[in-house]
């Protein structure tokens, strides 16, 4: 009981202290809100635009999640191909690394031009492109480093490759997979926002940020940043919760 209380109270307190310090910093320096808005400036922005925040936040959220789901499907697929076949691993690895090395900020305008007007599609595509790499790599490493004895205990009984995958390879790879998913969820979020900011007539929190910029509504811009942070925390902890459920066994026992 005191444990759960602690788990909520400690981070909440940390956040309050952070907000207080921020407010104090702005107040002491006497910064105008176009230089740095303070937490007390944000509140009116939320009150004024709460409907927009809900609509745009939802836009950002669903496109991020869709992009991430796509990244999971494709990343796990590529990871499985590379994990089971040495040849495919040797063939695909440099390609993947090269693809991952391209700064996505340069890809965003290209995609935006390629599929003009397909705003939802573009956003999901960028979220996907930026986030599938860690998933593919972790799954391929997890599968290719499976000790042969693990395979042999089932193979010696006549188990099929599919059975070995479901019973052993997949669960054994889950901790690595969730580790990668935590990275991927943040990346997907960055991808979504990049596209929302760059794409004209965009939707989502990125577009709200952009409109704050064009209207010189600085408190709005800061309010969007905080809303993005809140969404990011939400998504991250959803992944953590899923990890607890599906790969909780991998957590080190205390002591």
């Amino acid at each position: 009981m005191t444990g759960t209380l602690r788990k909520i109270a400690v981070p909440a307190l940390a956040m309050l202290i952070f907000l207080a310090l921020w407010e104090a910093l702005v107040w002491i320096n006497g910064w105008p809100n176009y230089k740095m808005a303070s937490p007390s400036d944000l509140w009116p922005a939320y009150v004024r635009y709460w409907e927009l925040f809900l609509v745009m936040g939802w836009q950002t959220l669903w496109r991020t999640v869709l992009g991430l789901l796509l990244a999971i499907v494709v990343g796990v697929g590529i990871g499985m191909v590379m994990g089971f076949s040495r040849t495919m691993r040797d063939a695909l690895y440099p390609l993947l690394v090269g693809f991952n090395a391209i700064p996505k900020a340069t890809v965003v305008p290209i995609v935006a031009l390629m599929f003009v007007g397909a705003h939802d599609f573009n956003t999901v595509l960028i979220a996907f492109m930026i986030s599938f790499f860690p998933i593919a790599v972790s799954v391929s490493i997890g599968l290719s480093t499976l000790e042969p004895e693990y395979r042999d205990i089932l193979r010696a009984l006549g188990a099929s490759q599919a059975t070995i995958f479901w019973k052993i390879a997949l669960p054994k790879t889950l901790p690595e997979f969730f580790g990668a998913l935590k990275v991927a969820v943040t990346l997907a979020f960055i991808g979504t926002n990049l596209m929302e900011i760059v794409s004209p007539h965009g939707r989502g929190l990125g577009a709200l940020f952009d409109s704050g910029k064009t209207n010189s509504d600085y408190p709005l811009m800061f309010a969007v940043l905080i809303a993005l942070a809140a969404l990011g925390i939400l998504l991250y902890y959803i992944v953590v919760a899923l990890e607890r459920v599906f790969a909780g066994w991998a957590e080190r026992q205390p002591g």
Partner: protein
Amino acid sequence: MTHLIDIKGVRHAYDTASGPLPVLDGLELSVDEGGFCAVVGPSGCGKSTLTRLVAGLMRPDHGEVWLHGQQVKSPRATVGMAFQNPVLLEWRTILKNVMLPLEIVPGGLRGKAAEERARYLLALVGLDGFEEKRPSELSGGMRQRASLCRALVHKPDVLILDEPFGALDAFTREDLWQTMHEVKAQEPFTAILITHDLREAIFLGDQVVVLSGRPARTQHVMTIARQTAPSLDDLYTPEAAERLNILRHEIEIAQGRAPQTAPEATA
């Protein structure tokens, strides 16, 4: 005369970057039903390869492997395996780990019956009370006991043990030797045990096969008549000392460290 395990003139080589590596050459080995064959040989001579051939995980380049009068061409559900690495699955409890083969083999026990079978075996090796624990909560010796239960749960004809006690300390190892005898009294099986411990070989085996250095062939076969369940004291009798002496000498020959003459004493 037919044996439960028959290995006839087996030859095998691995393809490696620097050409074929001959590992087995002219391997002969027969084990009667209920027999316990201990296999010793120099490090890297091809002992694990032998177990993979018997399990049907590989097919030899030449020669034949027969189990129960049938030539082994692919894996079959009638073998149980245990390795030096107990390879227990951390996401399953000990009980569920032991039950794993029953989920794979055709016609394996299901549900309550499967659970009872697993509990019975765990109790037999002294692991009652640990059914719901995770593998990481057990000591090395206990994990190896659980691994043994998993190898036996589907009542295999043949138990293939590849240095299962190799990573354990001497006391734990001796405990497990006695457990092996106790289990064998309750759960009859035919076994091939790979080991690098000569005392283990003569304590558990009724047949000790010495393999030559790579490529391995059958270099020496020692039969040990065994009427009753032995005690560890049997390892300190003059006969045991003589057997160990012979085996030690055979290993030296296999390693190429001794001339190929038998010691004066005979078994």
